[in-house]
């Protein structure tokens, strides 16, 4: 081992350590502050306690907002997955006139019309439809924003399924419904699971649309309540915010662990946007 080599090795590990610290330090607070008897903004070894958790459960809106998040994301996820699956299958297997143009426009839309760029017309539209404060309406808006990308990811999956499966089933006399139920759906299950997780994670973290469209605090999801808690200021909320942030993050992290364990963290174009 030459001295140059040793210096390079040390430099290498220092670099990795710095990067690791950069990414890890902000997150560690999420593990310590919820259980600290005197939670502060800075990172420190906690005086262990459960009292913050109790306080959070007693907060008038904390649990409601998590429930709201579940309802909102549940609807958005189911709508996105069901509609995208139907559309992707049809677009993959049937040559509808104008299909290629449609696919091109969908791909374009999925990146151009973001919630941010279209927030004004979306707000006005929902205002005029009387859907401000409607969780269902908001879920539909969130779903439609995710649909183009979801259709694309799923169409990739379906395209990779050999056509001979369906042809084989047809030769043995299966009707279109049987082909779908016996063959296509079971084989496309990993793709559908991916979209379920993808759309849930995306909807779960969406702040802008519910912030814009749900003005009633009793209907707001966790994403919006967290900001409200922070905006109110005051030290009282430092008992609630850490626990609440943790509770709000758990579903996403759990899903991530589940996906990376079952399928490996595969990479689909713009899987998260």
């Amino acid at each position, binding site marked *: 081992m030459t001295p140059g080599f040793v210096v390079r090795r040390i430099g290498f590990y220092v670099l990795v350590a710095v990067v690791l610290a950069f990414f890890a330090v902000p997150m560690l607070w999420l593990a310590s502050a919820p259980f600290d008897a005197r939670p502060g903004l800075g990172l420190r070894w906690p005086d262990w306690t459960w009292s913050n958790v109790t306080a959070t459960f007693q907060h008038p809106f904390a649990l409601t907002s998590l429930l709201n998040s579940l309802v909102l994301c549940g609807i958005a996820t189911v709508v996105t997955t069901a509609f995208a699956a139907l559309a992707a299958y049809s677009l993959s297997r049937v040559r509808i006139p104008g299909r290629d143009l449609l696919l091109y426009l969908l791909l374009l839309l999925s990146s151009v019309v973001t919630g941010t760029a279209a927030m004004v017309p979306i707000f006005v539209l929902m205002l005029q439809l009387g859907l401000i404060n409607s969780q269902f309406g908001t879920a539909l808006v969130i779903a439609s924003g995710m649909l183009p990308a979801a259709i694309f990811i799923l169409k990739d999956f379906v395209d990779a399924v*050999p056509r*001979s499966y369906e*042809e*084989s089933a*047809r*030769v*043995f*006399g299966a009707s279109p419904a049987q082909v779908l139920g*016996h063959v296509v759906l079971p*084989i496309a299950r990993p793709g559908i699971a991916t979209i379920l997780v993808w759309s849930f994670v995306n909807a779960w973290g969406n702040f802008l649309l519910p912030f814009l469209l749900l003005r009633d605090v009793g209907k707001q999801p966790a994403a919006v309540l967290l900001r409200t808690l922070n905006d109110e200021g005051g030290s009282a909320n430092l008992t609630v915010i850490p626990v609440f942030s943790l509770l709000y993050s758990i579903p996403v992290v759990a899903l991530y662990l589940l996906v990376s364990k079952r399928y490996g963290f595969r990479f689909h174009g713009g899987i998260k946007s």
Partner: protein
Amino acid sequence: MAGIEITGVSTVYPNGVRAVDDLDLTIADGELFALLGPSGCGKTTLLRTIAGLEPAAAGSVAIDARDVTRLEPGARGVAMVFQDYALFPHMTVAENIAYPLRVRHVAKSRQREVAAQTAGSLSLGELLDRRPGQLSGGQQQRAALARAIAAGAEVLLLDEPLSNLDARLRLEARTFLKRLQHELALTTVFVTHDQAEALALADRIAVMDSGRIRQLGTPREVFQRPADTFVANFIGSTPMNLLPGKASDGAVSVAGARLPVEVDLVDGTPLVVGVRPEYLKVSGAGLSGRVSIVENLGVTSLVTIECADGTLVGLTVPEQEEPAVGEALSVSAAPGRLLLYGEDGRLLGSR
């Protein structure tokens, strides 16, 4: 009697290519029939048209004297094994084999019974609860065959049934397939690009090119008397000698030699003389030249001789008679093995 009657069938791709072009073909009941040709010749498309997976743009397909041209694939009474087998990965072998019955809502117990019975006769009995992913290539192929047989159809269609197996397994599977077809006596049509496979398996062969049939006949006919130079080129494991020549004084002159065969053609008419390397032997007279290459084929050797005018002629010799490179040789054909093709490539006759 489940014969297949194909009349004037054309299958056209969306881009206008006529994959099958105004084709007539009759396949007899119980026959093991091969569709043979290079890739892109339309053989698979023809098979898929029989199955109903490709719509026929013109003509009609009849199975068992019943016009099925407009029927769905499932209503035609055919079963098919796909090149990639298309075994459903989420179903066990038993579920795969019984799938044709499940589609028809046959009772579960009966499904299981048929699956066990069919699997048993294809020595898959131990594997009923495995998934396709846990089977070897040969087992997958047999499972796909079992599923097709369990469908109880009268016509069996096989798309390149042996192409996904490795070389040694392919020979075993070939023998197995021939015996199975013989026992079941199902009308069977298979597609292959491997001429040796077609020759070994089939009762009759249709050699296809550009959506049409070039030659229809038994393996012996197709091997011994190719109807044109395309078929002559395509059939045979060693390439047939196709030597340019012309008629002169009622005989044929080729590669600087005069072959003592009688032709009834105007002097100077261009001809192609075809002869298989296996049918040439060393003799005192005939085509002469020097040995330029010797290739060992196992029991025989393929010897290429170069004639004075540069024409290359191949012949096979038994391994113990292998000549040295550079040696001068004369070769002549066994009687009746010399084929004469006209300028258009069509067979004029044999001598």
